[in-house]
């Protein structure tokens, strides 16, 4: 440490001491002035208490009441207006909120309802398609059955017709040629037939005899 530094430290210590002394002096002078002022205020308070009846008399109080009433009414009116505005705003917001909520709820319900209708429609379509398929199958089965019955009946009618036609032709032939063939012309045929059945006749005659 050199000389300059030492001087600087000493200077600083001296300055700090001087400053402390100044502050102490200053504080002592201020406290004496406050004490004086407190004394005057007490006197003033006493004077005020003694004259308070003169300053705040009944008219002054009534005036203060009126003013207070007017001020209160004004405050009340302003607050009522604010409250009304708030109420209107709240009502509007509430309406908007309710409208939005109801709309959202309704939309959700409508969506559900629409989904239900769509599901029911799908079910109905599936049921109708199933019914149509069943009806088609039944119709196809009935068509086959009817076709079979038709063919069977047709065959029966044709068979009956053919048999009846054969009977008609036989009958016609018998009627047509029955009186036209002389027995002499049939004799060879009859004898041939008898010859063919000779054994049967002989056997029957012998057993019968």
């Amino acid at each position, binding site marked *: 440490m050199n000389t300059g530094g030492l001087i600087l430290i000493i200077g600083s210590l001296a300055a700090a001491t001087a400053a402390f002394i100044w502050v102490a002096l200053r504080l002592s002078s201020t406290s004496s002035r406050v004490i004086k002022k407190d004394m005057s205020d007490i006197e003033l308070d006493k004077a005020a208490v003694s004259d308070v009846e003169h300053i705040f008399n009944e008219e002054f109080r009534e005036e203060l009441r009126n003013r207070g009433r007017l001020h209160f009414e004004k405050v009340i009116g302003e607050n009522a207006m604010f409250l009304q505005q708030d109420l209107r705003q709240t009502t509007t917001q509430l309406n908007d909120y309710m409208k939005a909520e109801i709309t959202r709820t309704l939309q959700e319900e409508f969506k559900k309802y629409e989904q239900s209708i769509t599901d029911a429609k799908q079910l109905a379509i599936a049921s109708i398609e199933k019914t149509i398929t069943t009806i088609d199958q039944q119709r196809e089965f009935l068509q086959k059955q009817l076709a079979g019955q038709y063919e069977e009946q047709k065959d029966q009618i044709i068979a009956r017709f053919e048999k009846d036609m054969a009977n008609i032709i036989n009958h016609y032939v*018998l009627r047509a040629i029955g009186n036209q*063939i002389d027995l002499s012309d049939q004799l060879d045929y009859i004898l041939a*037939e008898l010859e063919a059945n000779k054994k049967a*006749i002989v056997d029957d005659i012998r057993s019968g005899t």
Partner: protein
Amino acid sequence: MDLKLPNSVVSQVDVARLMRELGALGDFFISTQARQAGASVQPPRSSGALEQLASENKLNLLDGQHRQQLNDALNTLLGQAPLIHISFAAEPSPKALDRIVSWLRSNIHPQTLLQVGLQPTIAAGCVVRTPNRVLDLSMRAYLKQQEPYLVELIAGAARG
């Protein structure tokens, strides 16, 4: 005695008629024995069948014993001869009947008797009925047998 029947004797009716004729002839000879002298006699007319029968069997109808023999033979024939019933569509001519009887007696039995009937519905041919059987040899039966073929023809025509 195996009686030889002529073809003119066809049925039991003919045999019965012959027996009646024989009876009448016997009665005539009895009556001639009881007749008075000088009285005219009228012999009964015998049929050709009876004479043919007597001739074929070498019997004398003037002989009472032969008549009795013939009557007994006819009586036996009536009870024992095989009877065949034949139906035709129309009344057969004697000639046709003669051929049929001839065939029956030469092929079936020599004493076969025939009963002829009529069935116009058979059109042609005949129906033979023996004691236990019926043989339908008619055109009706033939057409009936051929009916499936006729149905087949009709079915072929109907179905193109």
